[in-house]
């Protein structure tokens, strides 16, 4: 730098100021400016930068949605939420549908979303042999990375990423242990099976087996785990719901409310998910439009009712919601696509899908508004809404903007 440096040189030479300026740029510019110089690149890809730019790594700016597989051509859609407050909103939402723009991931399917990163699978043709491959994707930066193949016959992959704790991500994979491989302790319970966990770490770039095998119900599912509170949480319709603590690598049981008396074989989950460091779930035991949103205590000592919801007002405004689904009369025609907790509790909201529409239902003042129209309404011969109910909550993945590198 020369002795008489110009004002702009002083700014350009000051990392603090430069970072402040970069922090205020929309994502699109930011990604372009990575190639200005090695210095700028180092500022932008610094994990600290990603964390400061989006300190609240739970700001949901949209939802990725798969239309139901009951439809002939399931497709991936994107629905923006609250993008007015988003600093990245430069009036150009082209980057909001980035998944379709990555050609090498054709046939891909998202199955997990965690603080801005997505875990997805796709079929790759390797020497004539179609193989399911797994990828981590940052839809904001359009970066993706393919994971080394996990063990064959696994029961599901679950993504762990929390930029406020670590710039690295992990993937938790559970597989069933063949009983012949184990010197079994005397466990006569025929409903229990042995499982083992493997973890991939982006820090090491490899899989490693972890901890001892554990037993769980035969019907336990180990995909669709939700990362919250330093653990992957699995909600099970049958048998115990479980969580796997990433730190001590132990599997424990999530305390759930008792199943009500009656002929219930399992838990009819209608939603579960994390938002702003809270873990919620909804069970609806009868065809009802009133339900409770439960939240799990941070120390796993129990769970409590966070919200009582009554969708009566929504049903009155949109009578099509009050129809039962033809293929399951247990369901009124609504789905909770997402529950978003905001810093101010009164600003928290649910994203609801009713035939032909996506709604925002505010949990504070219980008001609701239409976000957008989807599909055309169509009734079958019995007057049942068939075609316009497109999405289910488990087809919905939060989009959180992140410049984190993968």
């Amino acid at each position, binding site marked *: 730098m020369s002795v008489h440096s*110009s*004002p*702009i*040189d*002083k*700014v*350009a030479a*000051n990392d*603090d*100021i430069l970072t*402040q*300026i*970069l*922090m*205020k*740029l*929309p994502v*699109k*510019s930011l990604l*372009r*400016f990575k*190639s*200005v*110089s090695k210095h700028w690149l180092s500022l932008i890809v610094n994990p600290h930068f990603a964390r400061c730019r989006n300190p609240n790594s739970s700001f949901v700016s949209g939802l990725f949605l798969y239309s139901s597989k009951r439809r002939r051509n399931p497709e991936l859609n994107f629905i923006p939420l609250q993008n007015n407050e988003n600093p990245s909103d*430069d009036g150009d939402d082209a980057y909001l549908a980035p998944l379709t723009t990555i050609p090498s991931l054709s046939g891909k399917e998202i199955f997990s979303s965690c603080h801005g990163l997505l875990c997805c699978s796709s079929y790759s043709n390797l020497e004539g042999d179609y193989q399911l491959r797994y990828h981590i994707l940052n839809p904001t930066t359009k970066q993706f990375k393919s994971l080394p193949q996990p063990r064959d016959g696994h029961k599901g992959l679950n993504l762990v990423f929390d930029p406020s704790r670590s710039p690295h991500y992990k993937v938790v994979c559970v597989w069933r242990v063949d009983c012949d491989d184990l010197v079994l302790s005397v466990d006569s319970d025929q409903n229990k099976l042995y499982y083992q966990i493997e973890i991939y770490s982006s820090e090491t770039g490899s899989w490693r087996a972890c901890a001892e095998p554990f037993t769980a119900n035969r019907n336990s599912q180990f995909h669709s785990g939700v990362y919250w509170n330093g653990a992957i949480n699995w909600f099970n319709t049958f048998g115990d719901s479980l969580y796997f603590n990433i730190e001590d690598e132990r599997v424990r049981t999530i305390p759930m409310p008792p199943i009500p008396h009656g002929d219930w074989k399992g838990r009819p989950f209608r939603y579960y998910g994390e938002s702003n460091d809270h873990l919620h779930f909804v069970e609806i035991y009868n065809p009802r439009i009133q339900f409770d949103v439960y939240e799990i205590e941070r120390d796993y000592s129990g769970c409590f009712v966070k919200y009582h919801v009554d969708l009566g007002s929504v049903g009155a405004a949109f009578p099509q919601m009050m129809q039962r689904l033809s293929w399951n009369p247990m369901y009124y025609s609504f789905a909770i696509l997402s529950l978003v907790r905001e810093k101010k509790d009164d600003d928290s909201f649910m994203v609801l899908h009713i035939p032909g529409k996506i709604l925002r239902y505010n949990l504070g003042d219980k008001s609701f508004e239409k976000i957008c129209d989807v599909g055309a309404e169509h009734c079958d011969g019995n007057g049942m809404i068939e075609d316009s109910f497109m999405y289910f909550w488990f087809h919905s993945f939060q989009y959180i903007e992140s410049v984190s590198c993968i």
Partner: protein
Amino acid sequence: MSSSLEKNMLILRSSDGEEFIVPEVVAVMSKAIKNMVEDECASNTIPVPNVDANILAMVIEFCKKHDESEAEAASDLKTFDSEFVNRGQEALYDLITAANFRDVKELLDALCQNVAEMIKGKSVHHIRIQFLGYQLFEILTSNFIWNIWCDRDFD
């Protein structure tokens, strides 16, 4: 205590020796000055090295407005901010350095936002000339290939 403080005045002396009499509440919008005042290591006259009279006057104008308009509508302040930061390059970057050095957060935020607005649509090429002082010669030689590579998807 705060009501008596409001009557207190401080003198800020710029790097070129000019003195400004400023209410303390305005001066302490600079965190650096606030720390000095709180640590009681400041006499009534506080030197502001590295910031000349011209820039210091602007910083004070900004702080005064922000102090007065606490009760005013936020939109008015926003209008003021956007007009305030709309300056020539020299003054703009001098102000940024001053705001950063004296730790005046609101001013730094407004200025950085302004720079971000100015550069967000620019090409990599342009940014290099502006911020890295690249000369035409360098761009045409050593960085030629790199430039084509980087700018290839610029739209």
